[in-house]
């Protein structure tokens, strides 16, 4: 690919290093820029994945910048671009633009107890922060990870959960909406909100971060408020149809805010009064 003249909309070539199955619908891609340069991202940011002929799609970075120059993307197969991406294996080339968007505020999170709540593939962007907290554990208080999936087969990063649980001051809670008859799952049943009431948390030193499907946010926020957390201590990462990633195309506007540029990470207090935000 040519490198000049530079354009905001020109993808950077990258190579797929490896691909692994996460669930029947999700794969994890390890990718590196073809020039070997670091991605330069922070947890919570996203990329526009570019497959010429199929277009672009916003995908969150699922790995921490503390883990080297390569990076990982957890991708659910939901449309033509992600289906094509799922067909590509190690050694294939893709394009990226980014990283884009406001990341998690690591200064704000520093020293706090973190309650990370995800549903479905919302765990992928949180994994970037989870790895960051593992690698810089001294910068944070306790880290509690709550994750809900529709069934045991769709629990993300199952192989890594034991590593997270064994990290000092980390705890995990998993739940599924449903189980297959005859399956061997013996964990929690129910929505991720059901994991919140039993928690012991200090609302003055806890920050909750929610990433998941839109339907999840209000019920999770309701449970957190019952625990005494106010909107200035609840962080949400919102999903929108971000086509350009740079605040120009208009598809991800939330009233006067642009999710791709002002977000996707917001304090709840910044967006709770905006129509259509949640």
């Amino acid at each position: 690919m040519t490198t000049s003249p530079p354009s905001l909309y020109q993808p950077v070539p990258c190579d797929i290093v490896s691909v692994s199955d996460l669930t029947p619908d999700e794969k994890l891609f390890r990718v590196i820029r073809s020039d070997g340069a670091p991605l330069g991202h922070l947890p919570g940011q996203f990329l526009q994945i570019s497959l010429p002929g199929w277009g672009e799609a916003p995908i969150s970075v699922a790995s921490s910048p503390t883990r080297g120059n390569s990076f990982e993307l957890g991708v659910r197969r939901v449309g033509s671009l992600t289906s094509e991406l799922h067909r590509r294996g190690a050694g294939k080339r893709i394009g990226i633009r980014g990283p884009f968007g406001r990341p998690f505020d690591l200064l704000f999170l520093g020293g706090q107890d973190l309650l990370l709540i995800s549903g479905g593939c919302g765990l992928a962007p949180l994994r970037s922060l989870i790895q960051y907290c593992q690698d810089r554990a001294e910068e944070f208080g306790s880290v509690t990870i709550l994750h809900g999936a529709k069934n045991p087969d769709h629990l993300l990063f199952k192989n890594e959960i034991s590593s997270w649980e064994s990290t000092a001051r980390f705890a995990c809670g998993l739940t599924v909406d449903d189980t297959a008859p005859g399956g061997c799952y013996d964990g929690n049943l129910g929505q991720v909100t059901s994991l919140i009431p039993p928690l012991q948390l200090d609302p003055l030193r806890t920050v909750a971060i929610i990433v998941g499907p839109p339907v999840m946010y209000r019920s999770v926020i309701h449970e957190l408020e019952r625990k005494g957390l106010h909107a200035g201590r609840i962080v949400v990462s919102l999903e929108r149809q971000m086509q350009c990633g740079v605040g120009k195309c208009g598809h991800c506007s939330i009233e006067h805010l642009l999710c791709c540029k002002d977000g996707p990470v917001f304090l709840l207090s910044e967006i709770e009064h905006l129509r259509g935000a949640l």
Partner: protein
Amino acid sequence: MKALSDGQLLHFFKCLEKDWEVRLPVTLPDGTRTLGSLKDGPIALLGGSLPAKPTGAFFPQEEEIFRLSERELRLPLPPERPLFVAGFTSRDLASLLFIDRFFADDPKDDLYFRRRQSALVAAVTGWCGPGGSFIKMTSKGCDLELLRDERGWLLLSHSEAGRQATQELPEGDDPLRLERFVAASASQSNDDELLLSQAAELLRADLVPDSFWNEIGDRCILCTGCNLVCPTCTCFGIRDWRSASGVERIRMWDSCQLEGFMREAGGHNPLGSEALRSRRRIHHKLAADLMRWGEISCFLCGRCDATCPTGIGIVSVMKEMVARHGGPANQRSR
């Protein structure tokens, strides 16, 4: 100040073609009055605002982002000659300045400024509106101003580029002629300016009920004309076209009135009803842009009202909104 006849002005445009890609109002063979080149049809400077948005000269309906063939990616070449675009009214220029700010905001949109950066912009004002009506003078946002009266044209330069382009033209020798334009401009008023601020205040204070948007949404037929003609609408989609020679990635205007505008891959749609989409169109111009950019992004050009087949252009909606839900004065008396 330069003074030209119709013939001299045509000659001026022809001379400009040596160094500029000239776009100005012309009449196409099918009768359409639009921006075009001198080859496309006779000049049509008279008649007021063009039906299509002149800001489309810099943000076209469709433009190439890159072309990829045999693993070689090619960005579009910059224009061979800079653009000279005539045909802006003062309201069009206010719109142009707004989208200049929008596309210049970090990160700067290089596709937009590929055309805009070196362009020469000319306003057309004076007694050149529909039926010879007066169009207000302007100096903001243009390099040149073409002022029409019964004797022909005056040309005013508002930038160094404008002065250079017109330096060889004959000087005007009647200062009183320009004063008539100034006096006529000073006497112009527009009641819709007040309406604009009243409607914006209603939206900002969230005093417009959902039932209002349900009614407006029911009247929308999703033709998208409002967005397509609006000089401050900047939304676009990115699409890939595959062919035997490779892939072309383009961006093209999109419309917030379409059902799929915000629908996400997972199926969630924050604008899942015509009511929400109609509210978004109006709220975005009058309230959201006011918060984000410090100014309302409707400059009352009138195009959406002229285009909408069901009468829900922005001025029509504002009138109905203010009449039914009250301006600030009405709210105080409640």
